[in-house]
């Protein structure tokens, strides 16, 4: 099988050799546990008390903050969307800006990757200057595909050169399994998003994490040439189903509340039925609708850690939980993040 980037692969191998040697040198003395990190994915940066406490309690030194998204406008030009507003400057924790780029930007967009990289770097500088933040790393989140691969890879290279910062990317399981086709970005580390595995559907499968689906991909992880950090889900949502069709995705629906509400009847497993039509948390539930709760239990997180550690060539240096948020934190015991990391 041919590689699309032979020259770069050699570079990777070189890099890997050095990295591996260094890494195992360190491992000889003490087993390194991955650090706890979080993604922060809101448009206004203002940490609540519980969020601050989670950072302190878990000795979090790095917080991955969504700075903005990039989408296309009606002229197919790439533009930043919902840029972050810092209502409060973060203390101590190092911020890593994350930019989410829609794949369509590469497929239908008119911007050339080099030009877009320049704009992104300038825009991040503007945000940083305004809040007097410094950062050394920048993460790009994009579900690039075969069609967008070349432009995306060029963009990453340009970004590296123009920003002078460490560039990292997120990576999906399919990009790992089909790495020869989708390519490997020219970065030092990538963060494997170990969630959103299936389709949002009315069946009994969990779209956030499903062991069976994970198993189809997991064997490829070992051969991926980049060191991986792992992003794990701590979010939940409810899928509203009517006439066997999914009609809504209801975020942050508190199922403890649903359990108390006589408008809903528990069916089985993760399913609830709407008994009387009602409005709750901004959603309209019609009598006979079904609600499917999708969440990741603490035991699931531990299981994922167990499952993944067997497949990773190198233990990850960080586990990044998605996402830091009061509602999500409430669903777990405070110790869980550390425990998951210890399980790697």
């Amino acid at each position, binding site marked *: *099988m041919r590689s699309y980037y032979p020259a770069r692969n050699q570079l990777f191998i070189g890099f890997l050799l050095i990295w591996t040697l260094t890494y195992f040198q360190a491992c000889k003395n003490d087993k390194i546990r991955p650090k706890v990190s979080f*993604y922060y*994915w809101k448009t206004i940066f203002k940490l609540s008390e519980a969020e601050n406490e989670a950072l302190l309690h878990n000795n979090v030194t790095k917080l991955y903050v*969504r700075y903005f*998204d990039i989408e296309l*406008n*009606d002229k197919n030009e790439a*533009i*930043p969307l919902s*840029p972050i*507003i810092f209502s409060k400057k973060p203390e101590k924790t190092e911020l890593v800006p*994350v930019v*989410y780029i*829609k794949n369509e930007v590469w497929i239908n967009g008119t911007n050339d990757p080099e030009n877009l990289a320049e*704009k992104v770097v*300038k*825009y991040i500088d*503007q*945000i940083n200057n*305004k809040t007097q933040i410094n950062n050394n790393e920048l993460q790009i*989140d*994009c*579900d690039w*595909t*075969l069609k967008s691969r070349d432009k995306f890879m060029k963009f990453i290279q340009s970004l590296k050169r123009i920003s002078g910062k460490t560039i990292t990317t*997120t990576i*999906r*399981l*399919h990009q790992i*399994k*089909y790495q020869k*086709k989708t390519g490997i970005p020219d970065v030092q580390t990538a963060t494997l*998003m170990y969630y*959103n*595995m299936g*389709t*949002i559907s009315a069946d009994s499968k969990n779209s956030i994490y499903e062991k069976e*689906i994970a198993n189809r991909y997991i064997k490829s992880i070992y051969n991926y040439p980049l060191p991986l950090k792992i*992003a794990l889900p701590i*979010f939940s*949502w409810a899928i509203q189903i009517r*006439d*066997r*069709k*999914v*009609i*809504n*995705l209801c*975020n942050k629906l508190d199922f403890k509340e649903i359990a108390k509400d006589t408008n809903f009847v528990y069916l089985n497993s993760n399913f609830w039925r709407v008994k009387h*039509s*009602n*409005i*709750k*948390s*901004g959603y*309209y539930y*019609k009598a006979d609708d079904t609600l499917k709760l999708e969440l990741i239990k603490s035991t699931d997180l531990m299981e994922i850690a167990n499952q993944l550690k067997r497949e990773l060539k190198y233990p990850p240096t960080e586990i990044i939980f*998605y*996402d830091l948020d009061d509602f999500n934190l409430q669903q777990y015991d405070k110790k869980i993040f550390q425990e998951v990391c210890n399980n790697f």
Partner: protein
Amino acid sequence: MTKRSFKKYAITFSGIIISGYIFLYACAGGDENWFGYSNFTPEAFVEKSYGPLFFDDNQSFYYIGHDDNYDDRFNKMIVDEWFIYLDKKISKENLTYFLTGSSKQDINDLFNYAKNKTSNKGFQQWGKIINQNDPKIKAFIDFLFDASKVNQISTRGVDYDPWNYDEKPKAKKKSSPKLFDELKLKYKTTSDPFLKNRYWFQTMKAGFYGEEQNKAESFFNETKGLVPENTLFYRALSYIAGIHYKQKDYSTANYIYSQVFDNCPSLRMVTAYNFHPQNDKDWNEALAKAKSNKEKAALWAVLGFYADPERSVSEIFALEPASPHIDYLVTRMVNQYELKIQGSYWEPDEEKIESVSQFRNSQRSKINLGVIDRISAMALSDKTHNPFLMNLAAAYLNTLSGNYTKANDFFLRAKQHTPNTRLAQDQLRILQFVNMLSSMDKIDSENENKILTDLNWLYIQLPADSTLDKQSADEDQTIDPYAEYPEYKPFAFRYQRDSDWSKKYISLLYKANGDEVMEEFFNESGTFYENEKRTAKMKAFMQKTKKSKFEILAETIYRIKLSDLLEYQAVVKTFGNDLDGAIELMQQAVGNNRIELLANPFNGKIKDCHDCDFIAPKKITYTHLDLLVKMKEMKEKIERGDDVYNNSLLLANGYYNITYFGNSRIFYEGAIIGEMASTPWMMNAFFAKMLTSCDLAKSYYNKAFEAASNTEQKAKCMYMLAKCERNEYYNQNIYSRPDQWENQEKAADFISWNTFKRLKNEFSDTKYYREVINECGYFKRFVNGRN
């Protein structure tokens, strides 16, 4: 070598981002079948301002998707109103510039000139065009000057740079209290009612977009009785709703939005978008705020857009039966039912429909019979705003649940109220037809005659009209189908579902009669021609000279024509090595037999590169028929012992190139086998077996090998045989496996095929061998001991 569609692997993992409120899309297919599940055209019944709120399973707003004209929704109205006020002294074009364009500098210049009479650039440009001594025009310039200050805080401006963080939408400049007070004073001191009204609105706007929202609300409450209840009034009222929404006072916000929805058609879409109850409590509080049944009905009317049109229709009917809001909700309700039952028409989720009775039961089970009773009662009450719609909805729902006689009664009632538009008349006709056909238990010549006229209308006339309508709309640039509201053009008429459904239904009736040909005409099965007897029946039907009108129509709507059938039979004969039979059939396949091949079909290259063969210069271009004639000529020469090596090799190439692996796939890609089958996985198994087999090619390559006079020739034959062996390997290990795409990851690209071994062991001293090594990576790796 193997073509693999990456799409097959691409299990989608969404981005990290999870938005707060996601509309999930059902699979809707292409634009052509936008409402392929629907017979019920809302445009036939409902007033235009509700257009974006019609049911759309694919996006939030019908036809337009999302509301993207926040900045310019009222521009035309504003220009028109000023045009009249200024006694047409400034052209609409110039007014558009001043009121909506990048005119800030010119406005400043004109304002300054009026103040100190010093000429400036703006005055030089406009001084002669507009007369500032005219008191109304002077007042206009003054107003523009003030309004432009408000615009600075309310819009991003035309030269907004998205890549400048300082200009991000949420970082708008805030108004100073001074501006609000200035405008308020202008409102108070202006006596001209037109201008006074506009200063009133500008004051509200400055208050809303600035930091004076409390002041704005107080001002509104003080003055609301003094201003006319026009669009400006309701725009300002929407600001008040927005202020309450921001304060999380949802009950007030939603109550106000519903009132704007009720009274201001041009803001219906905006208010429906902004209306958003959070829970039962604030919803009930909003209802309690309503001062009359009309106001309560308005709240249910907006809620019905998000929530449950059935419930809203019932609630509104109880409160105010003649409310026009019921209309759009009834169309939403019927359209939602249509979507729900579409499974019974064709591809049902779980069941395969084999008979009309099964179809009826399946459809009936998906309709809430209580709703039919309620809608029927409303229609019979004669109290509703739109009796045509209510009676037609009742009729249609009765049809869907199998009450055909009852449905007829409602059709008769609806008929008396039919609006004088083609759309309404067509709507009535199509639903009556659906009822008639749905009630048919069998098909015979009597029933054929009953439906013949309607079927001609449905299958022939409507598509032709719709094409013409589309063309005229395209030519007439004033008709913008993506304008603010969906245009009420005849092509909005939803007949496509009925066209598809009636074919399936009629096909089921013929199936019950055991008439395979007519069944196929109305519902192409895709497997019909796998059976020779059936093929012969179809051919006999197509060739008979005396046909009934109904049979003619059935054959007309059938995609496959006689020449396609003959061409297909010729292809089958070719693959059966019966070239005489193939030629005879192909000669009769008039039209199709002249289709040209894209490459030289007798090429035998090391690499199977179709595109390379397509662009390579060709001395002769072969048609389907030419190919067969030439192949026959070669075959005869072989049989005669005439240049057996060359003729066998060329004939083998010919046979190779008409398979899936060769450069002349076009030979078999007729109407029956189709050209969509870009990989064998996508072909039906019957065709795939025939088209992926290289057996015939192989037999002639072997013949050529035997007749070869030197090792170069033998080496070539051996490599060609290797290609055949490779294809067989792919057929067995990839293309014929049920776990296809997973499997292709596991199956090796190549293995040590016998022919590879022989080529290496017996012909490594030939020139051709070296050519193969240069061009075929697999062979090179095999020779080097890697795979």
